């Protein structure tokens, strides 16, 4: 687990393509918060114990971790991490202060023939993946490490594939969602902000609004000129939105 900063605790749960790194948005958040950034089991430097097999296992791993943290904390879930954060929040919120979800997967919104969540796992070509996930793919090429990058070390490639494998263990079928999660999102009782890249084509802003509308009293905010990774593509806008929300009085 990476940790930096001072102030109220902020647990950041990463997406499947962005594990184990410390990015500028995290440094910026660390100016106001104690940022805790673990890697999910099977991602980055985290081992995946054999018995951690499905999303529910991952959620309980984090519930165990949260019981060990003293005091209250804020939770920021990004993409796959947003799904985990929502699963945590519907189960237990007694020391959860505020919740931010960004470009989160995890629920089913449309009908059976509509794929709400783009399958980026079949995209082995780096350019194809960047074009599908970034508003500005050239910026993505600079800011996100992906297979296909020139001179990518073998160990980095292996770690990346291992993360994708773990994501598929937790979210292959149903694809990246829990069909029962949406009906329980009403249990989230803490102030919640749903942030979304206005050009996210992995999960659309309309999907984000559906997510937000299922959480009582929550708010929705777009990050302009951003794809699926607004915290990497527009870190200033993103950090300002998160900081303002987390600093509000209840």
């Amino acid at each position: 687990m990476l940790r930096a900063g001072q102030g109220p605790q902020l647990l950041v749960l990463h997406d499947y393509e962005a594990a184990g790194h410390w990015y500028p948005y995290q440094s910026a958040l660390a100016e106001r918060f104690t940022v805790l950034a673990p890697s999910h089991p099977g991602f980055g430097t985290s081992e995946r114990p054999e018995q951690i097999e499905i999303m529910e296992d991952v959620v309980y791993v984090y519930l165990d971790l949260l019981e060990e943290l003293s005091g209250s904390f804020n939770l920021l879930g990004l993409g796959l991490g947003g799904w985990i954060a929502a699963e945590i929040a519907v189960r237990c919120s007694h020391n959860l202060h505020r919740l931010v979800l960004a470009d989160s997967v995890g629920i089913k919104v449309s009908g059976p023939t509509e794929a709400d969540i783009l399958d980026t796992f079949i995209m082995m070509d780096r350019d194809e993946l960047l074009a599908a996930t970034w508003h500005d793919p050239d910026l993505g090429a600079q800011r996100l490490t992906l297979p296909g990058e020139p001179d990518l070390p073998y160990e980095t490639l292996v770690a990346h594939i291992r993360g994708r494998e773990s994501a598929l263990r937790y979210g292959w079928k149903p694809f990246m969602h829990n069909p029962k999660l949406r009906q329980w999102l009403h249990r989230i009782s803490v102030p919640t902000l749903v942030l979304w890249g206005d050009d996210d084509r992995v999960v659309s802003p309309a999907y984000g609004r559906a997510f937000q509308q299922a959480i009582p009293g929550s708010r929705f905010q777009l990050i302009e000129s951003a794809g699926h990774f607004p915290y990497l593509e527009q870190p200033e806008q993103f950090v300002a939105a998160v900081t303002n929300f987390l600093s509000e009085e209840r």
Partner: protein
Amino acid sequence: MRAYYFTEMPYPHYPPEVVEALNSQRVILPSEYLDPKAAGELYNRYLDEHEYADELGLDIMLNEHHQTPTCIDSAMPLAAAALVRRTKQAKILLLGNPLAHRDNPVRVAEEMAFLDCLSDGRLICGFVRGVPTECHPANTSPPLTRERFEESHDIILKAWTTHEPFNWEGKFWHYRYVNPWPRPLQQPHPPVWIPASSADSIPWIAERQYVHATFLLPYQAQQKLHKIYFDTCAELGLPEPGPERFAHLALVYVGETDEKARVEGEALMWYMKAVRHMGFWNPPGYLPPEASARIMMGQGFPEPSWEDANNMGVVIWGSPDTVIQKMRKLHDECNVGHMLMMMQAGFLQTDMVRKSMRLFAREVYPAIRELGEPAAPAPQARGG
């Protein structure tokens, strides 16, 4: 050495430019490019060729794949049922049932027992994990394929050999009353064959004394895998395996002369010229991350030339004498006792296929048939 006739039942009449544009032959090629009338004619033609194999004294092999024009046998037990009723002598080898992708193992046990009874015990039952491209059509999580294969296998074997209801509460499957009717005719169960091309799969096969099959693997790769099989048997105190324990699949064409075989048979190489979408061929978790990374760094799979493939034992073509020599080499150097012969691929027309089959049956088979010991019906029939 026994010989098995095989075709994947291709549907080659699709527009190649569509495959190029999609960068994939499999999974996502729209079915609008398949004409059901033409598919029906092909099914009948391919089944006729299998029946001809029986008339010639050859055994028969079938397989199955999904959502691909390389193989429109998408329900192998159906093809087997059609052939069982129209053949007399041939062993019917199903290689194999894609266990990771079949949602109901008890149903597989029933289908195989049905075929075994119907064929008077001519069934040879293959089980496969399924190639990577089967994960998306069946929507099976790639990291779970091996575990699913093993649990499904355990259920099927128990269903065949337990002749009363039993309970199964495993990881992927849960039943409270497993008791399939019929049960298999061959006792204790039909012969089980498993294809594998990675070293870590071999001990599991050897421990169970199953037949190990290699598909389109070079001589040296076969030898390396077979050594693991031998070593596992030695470690466990099991009898040393004979050639009846090893099968090899190659593309095979027999012509009147080497030159004629080279020219006529090259059409088989259609099968090797696949357009492979790496998202479907190398999904995360199907292979260990290190192996998956090596494929990504090598940018895919090598595609050998006709001559290279010939030198490796991946294709076997030539005059009857040449083919005899190459199959002897497989027997002598790789301990192969079952020759699985893909004698049709792509556009290779039925008259050429039948001519090649005829030449094999009349001029090659008599010379190699006696190689090694005849295939034993069950492993325990062999002495130590």
